[in-house]
């Protein structure tokens, strides 16, 4: 077994590195670090790299995961040190361990969201949005658009603070293979509900990823 799971953060302007570009970024950082990575077989061999859960463009995170196959000649400490030298400054490897749980079992993720609006908003109004039974929304899928009840994708939401023109949310949204929603969609529906055209500021930060081990929901690792 030569597969390692790397936990990393993606902060600052790193939020504008798209999912596809992130793969290229890791591939090249591994190349620069001269690490003994393993390649796929076949006509066009590529490094064996798999991200556990894609992160939407524009979102920062302190808890991302990527699985990479290395030869056994290298220790996790060496991998971490080398990559932190060759990755761009906005990506940092935080921990390396053997993958024990499957990314297929990921069910949700927590986001801390800071919003600013131009007009003052009442806390009760923001809470009222999340208390609705049904939030009809058009969700983009691979085939096109589909009408869904967004409420089914919002597992938890606490309106932590509404201070004049600033809103702070702490929310857990469905994530992973079976049901997934981008925080953007929830926020655009909230804006519609509040009757505003756009937020003057919007910062979304992913803090936790959860998986279901068949018995309970736990932090992914």
């Amino acid at each position: 077994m030569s597969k390692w799971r790397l936990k990393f953060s993606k902060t600052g302007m790193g939020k504008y590195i798209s999912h596809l570009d992130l793969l290229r970024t890791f591939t090249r950082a591994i190349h620069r670090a001269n690490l003994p990575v393993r390649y796929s077989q076949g006509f066009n061999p590529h490094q064996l790299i798999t991200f556990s859960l894609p992160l939407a463009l524009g979102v920062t995170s302190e808890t991302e995961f990527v699985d990479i196959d290395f030869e056994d000649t290298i220790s996790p400490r060496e991998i971490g040190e080398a990559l932190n030298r060759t990755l761009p400054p906005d990506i940092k490897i935080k921990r390396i361990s053997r993958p024990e749980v499957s990314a297929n079992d990921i069910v949700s993720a927590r986001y801390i969201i800071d919003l600013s609006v131009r007009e003052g908003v009442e806390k009760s109004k923001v809470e009222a949005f999340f208390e609705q039974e049904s939030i009809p929304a058009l969700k983009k899928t691979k085939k096109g658009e589909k009408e869904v009840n967004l409420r089914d994708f919002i597992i938890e939401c606490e309106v932590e603070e509404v201070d004049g023109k600033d809103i702070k949310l702490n929310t857990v949204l469905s994530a992973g293979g079976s049901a997934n929603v981008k925080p953007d969609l929830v926020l655009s529906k909230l804006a519609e509900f509040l009757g505003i055209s756009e937020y003057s500021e919007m910062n979304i930060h992913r803090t936790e990823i959860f998986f279901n081990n068949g018995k309970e929901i736990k932090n992914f690792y």
Partner: protein
Amino acid sequence: MSVYKIKFEAALKRIQKPGRYVGNEFNSVHKENFGELIKFAFCFPDVYEVGMSHLGMKILYHMMNDREDTVCERVFAPWVDMEAEMRKDEIPLLSMESYVPVKDFDIVGFTLQYEMSYSNVVNMLDLAEIPLRSAERKGNDPFVCAGGPCAYNGEPLADIVDFFILGEGEEVNNEILDAYKEWKASGQARVGYLERIAKIEGVYVPSFYDVEYNDDNTVKSVVPNRECAPAKIKKRIVKELDNSYILDKMIVPFMDIVHDRITLEVFRGCIRGCRFCQAGYLYRPVREHSVDKLVETAQKLIDNTGYEEMSLSSLSTSDFTCLQELIDRLLPITVDKRINLSLPSLRVDNFSMELMEKVQAVKKSGLTFAPEAGTQRLRDVINKNVLEEDLLRTAGIAFDGGYNRIKLYFMIGLPTETMEDVEGIAELAEKVIGVFYQIPKEIRKGRSVTVTVSTSSFVPKPFTPFQWEPQNRMETLVEKQDFLKERIKTRNISYNWHRSHVSFLEAVFAKGDRRLSEVLIAAHKKGCRFDGWDEHFSYEKWMEAFRECGIDPEFYAYRRIDHSEVLPWDHIDIGVSKAFLMKEHDKAYTEQTTPSCREGCAGCGAASFGGGVCFE
């Protein structure tokens, strides 16, 4: 921290491809003592993906940043969606690394790679809130300079740019930075800096020259109006490439850019002398890197970038004298690290399958060749010393080697071209297909073959033997394209062509004089930008701008110029003499070819630089 950063970041959330604007890539340079340094803004007048693919920018960016007293930051043209946000939120043009307004830099340098980017130069100055005309810039405004191939005839930008840098920048850029420091310390007025650098070889300050015109609108004279300005401005070259600045690191972008790979420059210049090709004359004489230096540099670039592809770059890579040795020494490194070697710009007369087999060990993509003209007569006129037999032989080798897609590049509208020559393009493509079907079915690789024929429209360029030639009228070019479309009968050939409106404007600005500066500003006011992008090019707006300025664009593109006429760029010396260009022009009409620099010196004048192929 820049006050604009917050606004700029907020705008990023409302636009496509924010990755174009965020920077922070691996190997980008961020200097902490920014305020104390000479600040150079390196502007590429196109989007990030295009600009980041350009080797010259990579070299000068790292070279200037290697100086302790200087900071060089990048600036690209914001795409139209970002421009709209910036104008709405009153964000001026910012540098990529520090988010500092471009107008706060000391020197703002543009690279001019193609004429159709001129409107972006003007638009970027406007976004930067820098006065558009050099005469309007005062005290604290930055100096605006420009370099690159189009700077050799930068006259259309003469009223906009403070100074041009002609030739290779490795030495002269350092000299203008040194001069800046001296000038700053001297406390002299703005013009004092320009007077200092006008004495540096390769620097051209257009406002130090007066242009007079004849009654027929042709140029009468270009005369310096102060003592520091030389009558002729000679381009700069680096005599010994190995001893010059060696680029051993490159910024590695996050997003996919046009040329997303290591560019290993093997030599500069070209030995060939195709009569339409401006680069072939501008970059003379040919100077090569040594194989030792190239291998050493390649290793460093691989280690410092992590790229998975490396391209051996030059104007004609198969003309590199030690190509075989270079590849033999590079392969052990690249194979081991799974790096693909690619070889652009191959010629059909020295193509070797063995070489191709080596470099493209994995992927069998298509091959591209540029016969440029459809008949031997016309190929002799343009001095493209390629024979039909060479092309067919090469096609045969490629098909045997398992390739079954070939791209052929041609030009239409070349001097002396007849419909027979145009028809020759279709015939040549058919002959290439014929070569494939001559191979017995049993040993043929692949079921069918595709030949893609692309034609661009000939644009006469300054500093070439064809600088005196008129361009074909747009109607004629379209007629020739339509004729060729009809002549192509088999489904194995597909045909691409260029819009002739763009080629016309390219000719106008390539051969233009400084009266076009006002046209550029007028076109900018009408919203012209990104003219190299089909979806933004508006021929109508350009024509309105010409009408308003009372200038006839056809004067520049369609007029046959007499050898005795003063050309708007006659005061620029690229090292190739006008007499040589005239001789080559005459030889074109008698269909005589000129051998390459290695077969025999034709006496172009570039030997005056004292280096390169002239002394091999």
